[in-house]
């Protein structure tokens, strides 16, 4: 068995939801003598698994099962209440495509911005501009401000940057299915290259295609716990049954 590049142990996370939300100093002062009740929402409760080197692992679950919270903890956006995340290789989290875009900047500046946000050095990002624009099929629009792009063009550019910025472990949250058929084919080809190169991928998706075609293994999350584990196909079927 290949070694684990990511070890998730006993992760727990709860959010405290007040009966009345107070978000200003004024509300806190005037509400001082009106105590609030708080509800505790346990989103994750003792989640443990390994992601092995070169493996593609899917996490499935209904809305509210805790998938995105789990990925955010792995990505370092949220801190866990309990448990540990041990990463033995650099992680590239892509929790949303094109996060950080600036519509007032052109495609080149956005590639530099997004590339450095995703972990490329400025030098790497500069060197990759032509390659990224070519992958997205947007060479002619290099100096066009992003606000004039269609949503499809912007998504293609975001994908192209994301694929260039990939480090050893890739964490993906629902970012499949953008672009036309040709672009999807390029993405799938690039994805196969990444697998062949030994990258590990942890992905969340409601789409059966990537789960069944690309994943070596899958986990089903329900009520903040892992309730079953198996092949992509088996777990996707279990997920469909869970949804009724």
């Amino acid at each position, binding site marked *: 068995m290949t070694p684990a590049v990511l070890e998730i142990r006993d992760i727990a996370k709860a959010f405290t939801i007040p009966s009345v939300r107070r978000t200003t100093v004024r509300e806190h002062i005037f509400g001082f003598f009106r105590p609030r009740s708080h509800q505790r929402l346990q989103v994750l409760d003792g989640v443990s698994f390994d992601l092995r080197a070169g493996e593609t692992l899917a996490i499935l679950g209904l809305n509210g099962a805790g998938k995105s919270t789990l990925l*955010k903890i792995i990505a370092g956006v949220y801190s866990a209440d309990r448990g540990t995340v041990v990463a033995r290789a650099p992680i590239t989290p892509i929790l949303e495509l094109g996060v950080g875009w600036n519509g007032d900047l052109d495609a080149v500046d956005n590639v530099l911005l997004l590339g450095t*946000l995703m972990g*490329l050095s400025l030098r790497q990002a500069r060197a990759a501009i032509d390659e990224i624009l070519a992958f997205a099929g947007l060479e002619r629009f290099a100096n066009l401000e992003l606000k004039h792009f269609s949503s499809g063009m912007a998504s293609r550019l975001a994908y192209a940057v994301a694929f260039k910025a990939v480090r050893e472990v890739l964490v993906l949250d629902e970012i499949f299915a953008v672009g036309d058929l040709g672009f999807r084919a390029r993405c799938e080809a690039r994805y196969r290259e990444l697998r062949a190169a030994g990258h590990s991928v942890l992905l969340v998706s409601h789409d059966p295609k990537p789960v069944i075609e690309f994943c070596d293994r899958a986990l089903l999350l329900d009520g903040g716990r892992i309730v079953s584990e198996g092949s992509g196909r088996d777990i996707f079927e279990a997920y469909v049954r869970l949804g009724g």
Partner: protein
Amino acid sequence: MTPTVDVRGLLWTLIRTDFKVRYHGTVMGFLWALMKPAAMFLVLMTVFSLIFATDPHYKLNLLIGLYLWEFFAEGTKVGLTALAAKGYLLAKTRLPRWILIVTAPSNSLLTLLVVSVVLLVTLAVAGPRPPLVCVGLFVLLLVQLVLIVIGFALGTSSLFLRYRDLNQIWEVVVHAGFFLAPIVYPLGIMPQRFHVYLYLWPPTPIIQYARMLLVEGQVPTARALALLAGVTAVVFVTGLLLYRRFAPAAAEHL
């Protein structure tokens, strides 16, 4: 959080991006940044130089006070909302939060640096020529001013996510603070017994010492400089402690 980005490259990209977005496409570009303090200076000079006509350095003192104040006011205001303004990055990317905070006042910092260089060159050419040691200490004052603004931003930007009217409260404090600091009036017109309180407001010692160094060519006492260094350290360390306490959960309060 362990940095997983090229920190220097990202700092430069964010600063460059903010600058470009703010001034790109405007007819006068960066000169717009200088227009507000320049217009303010002209208005205040026209009114108050008549009142303080006996002070031969009034205009120069006003200019120094005003541009240092402008950096403090603008820097703290944008610093306070730094994390909220870039909340989309906070919620979806793995980057050290402090990068978003320290880059927020970059446009104000650029204005501060440009005006400082112009001021020092003008003083060297047209006088009064401050001694080199005074210029060195003035640069040290600027560093302390920047540290105060960044310390404030580190502390308050995480708190702002929990208390969304902090910016309005700070706006009121800044308005009052403009008159608390001796910007449009010489400190000497205030009764001596109030001076100690006025010096507790960090812009006051910065502005007063800058005037002493550049206009009068005098070095403040070691005790005075040490006290200012102490105030700077307290503001910065307090900001850092608040940042360490609240920033890790910042994404949960967006």
